[in-house]
């Protein structure tokens, strides 16, 4: 909990927490057939798209079949990982008591073994959200994503590492829990890590066998087309997941915390940290489904175990609470949020500027990523535009700005 955040008294903070708790209680009381129908429908769509995609790729020597098959398989993998896998593994559907949707046993179509994900994501990331040194989603052990991470010359490669991570995202996530940047010191630690590495290897092997050997072989003469289609689908999923996930905590305005700040938090303070550390994306219904509703990152971090398709419904209430308590609610369209993430990746590649450097130098640093971000932002903007936003994105001016005291690290650069 940021000690330097005197914007709420402890009574106000508790009242704020109680209001959020009331939303949770209300949704839980309302859970039922609608939620079961929803997730079953998404699963049917995913399985249908997968079968259709793989079927079409068998005729992949015909360009339209290859394109349609690859597109269907890409969408299927995105749904599998995001709206189904990520959300089911949070236990969002445990209350259905359906063993097929049991959060503790569900497995997904990606390189990361479900059990390791449940630890690194559900526990480490969701409990210690945005605490530098504890939340490994800050930079995945290879990137500098926060001013609070001390700069080293290694980080000059930040944009390159980020690009590689995006391209190979499923493997980045898979080795995420191995803490590759920290060597275990004890024998038990080494033993545990080698077991985890073995699990990752088994999962990667099974995934590779399926996508890059069995399905291509099964297609006979279409072998290269199926191989290329499957690789493209995996790549598309990687890039999309990276984009959405990095927009969850790194657009400008999100706050990181120190371990001291988060010590002895109450639940209300924990809620407060979740909101300050997360950012939403605006878009249409289809966009939110494809984003696994992680476009409602704030609501997801408040209530990670509520069915994600409910986040849109409660977002107005969460936002209203935030406005009444003067807590910034960070949201914006994908192209804008992603551009700001790319900006941060590039900016943090460089060491913090000493104050004696002139205004010109600081401006140069701020503008440096623009040539990189502009074409990408334009592309993303077009993609999202195709999905027709159901609600007009809020303008920048109506968004409350975070209190300056909460972002000491950023002040160094932006001030």
């Amino acid at each position: 909990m940021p000690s330097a955040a005197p914007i709420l008294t402890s009574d106000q903070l508790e009242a704020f927490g109680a209001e959020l708790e009331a939303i949770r209680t209300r949704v839980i009381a309302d859970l039922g057939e609608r939620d079961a129908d929803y997730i079953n429908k998404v699963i049917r769509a995913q399985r249908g798209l997968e079968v259709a995609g793989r079927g079409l790729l068998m005729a992949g020597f015909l360009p339209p079949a290859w394109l349609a098959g690859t597109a269907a398989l890409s969408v299927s993998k995105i749904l599998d990982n995001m709206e189904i896998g990520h959300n089911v593994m949070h236990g969002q559907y445990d209350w259905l008591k359906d063993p097929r949707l049991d959060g503790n046993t569900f497995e997904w179509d990606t390189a990361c073994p479900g059990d390791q994900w449940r630890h690194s994501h559900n526990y480490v990331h969701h409990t210690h959200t945005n605490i530098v040194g504890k939340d490994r989603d800050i930079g995945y052990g290879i990137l500098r994503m926060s001013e609070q991470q001390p700069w080293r010359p290694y980080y000059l490669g930040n944009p390159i590492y980020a690009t590689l991570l995006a391209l190979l995202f499923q493997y980045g996530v898979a080795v995420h829990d191995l803490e590759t940047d920290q060597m275990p010191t004890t024998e038990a630690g080494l033993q545990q890590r080698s077991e985890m590495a073995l699990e990752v290897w088994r999962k990667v092997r099974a995934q590779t066998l399926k996508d890059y050997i069995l399905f291509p072989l099964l297609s006979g003469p279409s072998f290269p087309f199926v191989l290329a289609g499957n690789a493209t689908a995996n790549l598309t999923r990687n890039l999309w997941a990276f984009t959405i996930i990095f927009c969850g905590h790194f657009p400008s305005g999100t706050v990181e915390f120190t371990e001291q700040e988060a010590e002895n938090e109450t639940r209300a303070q924990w809620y407060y940290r979740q909101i300050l550390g997360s950012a939403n994306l605006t878009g249409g219904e289809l966009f939110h489904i494809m984003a696994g509703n992680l476009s409602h990152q704030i609501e997801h971090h408040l209530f990670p175990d509520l069915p994600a398709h409910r986040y849109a419904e409660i977002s107005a209430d969460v936002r209203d609470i935030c406005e009444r308590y003067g807590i910034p609610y960070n949201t914006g369209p994908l192209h804008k949020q992603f551009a700001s993430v790319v900006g941060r990746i590039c900016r943090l590649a460089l060491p913090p500027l000493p104050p004696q450097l002139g205004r010109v130098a600081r401006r140069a640093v701020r503008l440096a990523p623009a040539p990189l971000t502009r074409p990408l932002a334009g592309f993303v903007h077009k993609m999202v535009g195709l999905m027709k936003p159901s609600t007009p994105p809020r303008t920048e001016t109506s968004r409350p700005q975070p209190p300056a005291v909460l972002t000491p690290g950023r002040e160094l650069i932006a001030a």
Partner: protein
Amino acid sequence: MLHSNLAEALAYPHGIDRYIELVRPLQVKGEMRAEVTGVHHQTAKSVTLTLAPSENWRGLRAGQFVGVSVVIDGVRETRPYSPAGSEHERNGTLELTVSTHPEGKVSRHLRDQAQPGMIVGLTAPQGQFVLPDPRPERVLLISGGSGITPVMAMLRTLCDEGYSGEIGFLNYARSPQLALYSGELAQLARRHHSLHVARGFTQGRAQGLKGRFGRKHLRAAGVDHRTAATYVCGPPTLIESVRALWAADGLKQPAVETFTAPVQRFETVAATGAVHFLASERTATNTGLPLLEQAEDAGLRPNHGCRMGICNTCATRKTEGTVRNIITGALSSACDEQIRLCVCVPVGDVALDL
């Protein structure tokens, strides 16, 4: 072909069943299911279903029960039912007679909603309430209310086997209108001379045995209870009376099966009862703390993460009992549900698969 290793490798990681079931729900390999093929109502408070199980169903012994799963308002509910059909049913179908009670979510759902074509889930049969092999010389079957189903299965099985020993069949119902299998019992009694059927009605003035279970009723069942292999299924009061009489006569206690309805309401949340950790075979007195702490206090090391109901790492199957969620205050007493140990405190006895 569909269930080959190749198919499984292609369907990794979900498994081929998850694709097959979208088209043919009965052809999955990893789960047992059944299709309802017949529905009839013997009484106003019951429904009798004929179930055609999937190919992976391996049959059951008369008297055993199976977990039957249905989806109600999206939630999968599982309840134990003892099929009433013979072990030797020729086409392998199962017969379920489900009696409703006012709080019975699943029983009322089945009575009101079951239609031919409906798919239900089945668990493997369980229970030691079965006839021994070889069959005993004399058999006495005592039942009350919906408890008639497992002994009906035994009776039908013995009749199918051409069993020549004596069978006493003593059954209680509230009234003839609510009595199950009346026509068939009368028919079987006519056909099998060694079968004696005696029925008691606890309400009204219908013909039959008067009052509740006692020595007189045993005589009406026509089998010497001291030498017969006895099977009792029914409400706790019936079972207690039978046990008392057997104890008074210095006899070995009969085989007993009972299904008690879960307690539905709690007024207080005092720390009472015990926590049973089934997998580790330990029991601890309920201290009123969250189950995660109680498990740790008992020397167990359950998997856990946030300890605040967020990450779901500690989700564990609760097989019995009621817990209160300390965040929502909600009580939950369903059997076989996943609970988060870190935010659930037991209300009375609780059993965990831990």
